[in-house]
């Protein structure tokens, strides 16, 4: 241990000496490929804009790996100042009071100007405390939308994209009679078909404001609406209107190959679809059930946010705060939004993108922003704050698969999932009380 400390000091000193007097801020992230390069560019932009601080981005693998390594580093007292954590890890981060430095507090204590109302509430809502204070800085957020194959629609004589699930059914039938074998497929079934389904209809997914109200929350996704939806999808799986294609976003293959004409997937999937689709495609809002809700609510975000970890010097935190301010600049945000397909986090960035004519030039890219900003988020649409959420999603995946395969009916499957999920919530409550 002692040797390790000395070694890390030596490494630290050699790194520090290369940066002259600048204070170094380490930023662990999970963005590979093109997005990872963009992150380096953003950091470089910040580093070039001033000479007091140097932000050093480090790629740590996928979301899970990044979070796990940050936690392991924290236990060994080697944690970075900033770490990118996916949305399902929010409850775990929040509960770790001694480990995190809430963003609103950091900004205040570092004397950075910080106006929480400048951010899109539908995005920041996921990451705020029950008192409405921002705990982490949203970075890459997305929300599910419906992609559809315009060529196949035209062939089947369909002129309009479906708005409701009823229309999805009739559209799929028309497509099938024109020779398409599958109506639609979905990515991230729990996120799209249960979590966002519930939010869209302003129905709770869990009690106590979807978990925002405390650790005593219980799952509630076995209500009438969700059961009816899952039951219907189970029927659709049998007659080909729906075709299941795995727990992640493997369904993209069925959409690209034109086997399925519609695809519910994250708005951040836009770039990939644009690159791979050999046909004309459109983007429309996530469908809702007509008759179940008058005006569909905003959907919930997915993606990740930046958390600041405890255990660094005041000087470093000043650097973190000024970096977060830089990151929130309209120009930086608009650039990241347009490049990656993730949502803009400030109203200014949205207006700037619109003003630059980006949405007009790239039809479909605005859909998610419009869908996110319909109305004011309610307790049911602000987000989800559930402990052990990763495992709960696993439980939900299993339940849904048992319905798609026709083994179990929707009500029983969701009841079982709620029961198993609640056991996981109680466990989290016990560990974090």
């Amino acid at each position: 241990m002692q040797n390790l400390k000395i070694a890390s000091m030596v490494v630290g000193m050699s790194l520090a000496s290369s940066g002259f007097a600048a204070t170094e801020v380490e930023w662990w992230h999970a963005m590979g490929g093109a997005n990872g390069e963009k992150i380096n560019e953003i950091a470089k932009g910040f580093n070039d804009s001033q000479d007091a601080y140097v932000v050093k981005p480090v790629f740590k693998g996928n979301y899970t790996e990044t979070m796990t390594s940050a936690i392991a580093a924290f236990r060994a007292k080697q944690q970075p100042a900033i770490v990118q954590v996916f949305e399902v890890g929010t409850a775990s981060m929040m509960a770790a009071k001694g480990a995190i430095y809430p963003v609103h507090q950091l900004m205040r204590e570092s004397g950075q100007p910080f106006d929480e109302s400048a951010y899109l509430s539908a995005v920041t809502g996921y990451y705020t405390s029950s008192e409405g204070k921002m705990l982490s800085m949203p970075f890459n957020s997305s929300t599910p939308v419906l992609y559809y194959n315009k060529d196949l629609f035209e062939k089947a004589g369909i002129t309009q994209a479906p708005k409701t699930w009823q229309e999805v059914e009739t559209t799929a039938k028309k497509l099938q009679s024109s020779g398409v074998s599958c109506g639609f497929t979905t990515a991230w079934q729990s996120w799209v078909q249960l979590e966002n389904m519930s939010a869209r209809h302003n129905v709770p997914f869990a009690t106590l404001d979807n978990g925002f109200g405390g650790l005593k929350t219980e799952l509630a996704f076995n209500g009438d609406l969700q059961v009816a939806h899952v039951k219907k999808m189970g029927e659709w799986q049998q007659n080909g209107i729906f075709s299941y294609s795995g727990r992640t976003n493997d369904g993209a293959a069925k959409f690209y190959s034109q086997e399925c004409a519609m695809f519910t997937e994250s708005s951040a999937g836009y770039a990939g679809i644009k690159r791979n689709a050999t046909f004309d495609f459109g983007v429309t809002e996530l469908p809702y059930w007509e008759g179940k809700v008058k005006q569909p609510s905003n959907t919930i975000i997915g993606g990740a946010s930046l958390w600041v970890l405890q255990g660094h010097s005041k000087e470093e935190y000043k650097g973190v705060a000024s970096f977060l301010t830089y990151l929130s600049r309209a120009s930086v945000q608009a650039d990241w939004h347009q490049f990656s397909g993730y949502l803009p986090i400030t109203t200014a960035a949205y207006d700037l993108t619109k003003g630059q004519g980006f949405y007009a030039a790239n039809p479909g890219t605005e859909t998610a922003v419009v869908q996110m900003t319909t109305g004011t988020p309610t307790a049911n649409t602000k987000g989800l704050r559930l402990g052990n959420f990763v495992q709960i999603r696993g439980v939900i995946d299993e339940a849904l698969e048992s319905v798609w395969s026709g083994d179990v009916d929707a009500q029983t499957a969701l009841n079982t999932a709620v029961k198993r999920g609640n056991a996981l919530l109680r466990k989290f409550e016990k560990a974090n009380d």
Partner: protein
Amino acid sequence: MTVTFPQKGLPWLLLLPQLLVTAVFFLWPAEQALEQAFYQEDAFGLSREFVGLDNFLDLFTDPLYYQSMLTTLVFSFSVAIFGMSIALLLAVMADRVIRGKLTYQTLLIWPYAVAPALAGVLWWILFDPSMGPIALWLESMGLDWDHYLNGGQAMILVVIAATWKQISYNFLFFLAGLQAVPRSLIEAAAIDGAGPFKRFWTIVFPLLSPTTFFLLVINLVYAFFDTFGVIDATTKGGPGQSTNILVYKVFEDGFVGLDLGSSAAQSVVLMAIVGVMTVIQFRFIERKVQYS
């Protein structure tokens, strides 16, 4: 015959490197897991509570845990049996090749260099229901392949992916074993009129038994412990619970779910299972092994 050292210290000194490696890389982590299994702890290690046997009780009152055990047994024995029989077949054939022997053998060993997760992805793509060449071929033969929904097919897929890689390893050992079989014995049997099959089953196979036994232990340990990469890259335990093997659950709950107490308890259970299995193998199966 036993060799005795004049000093007491020297044997220990000679054993020290191996003992040190065992202690640092095996005993210490095992002890840590054992300790962790009795605690419930938040992910960051900020608070820790002794919960006694709670983590174990949670497991053993969960019917799904027993199901996962059964799945693990089916998976592990399938991987070991298929992996070994195919490797033996290939080794016997490679042993008879005269021209291009080295190339042939090298090619057969290659898959061992592929990481388990990659092997998983490779087979996953080959079997993809909408674009995988094998799946499309099966479909043209009238078999509907959909491992996203069909648990049995998902199991077959992960068994293939986990086995494929292991075949190379087994092949290497079987080939070495075959080459150590004295030619004179085989020739003598041939002169006495024994056909190739008879020669194999009565002479070669019994002489190979130490290798076979060693591989059985190694393969089962591999299937029990090393295969979470294959599962993670492909089915993630699904559909339903159909490919949720014990070691994947350890990985999922520990590294993804950050539930360290339960994950530690599960690995203790896993260690116990493999320990018991190894004892059984050494006590009952090893008796049949003929060391020359």
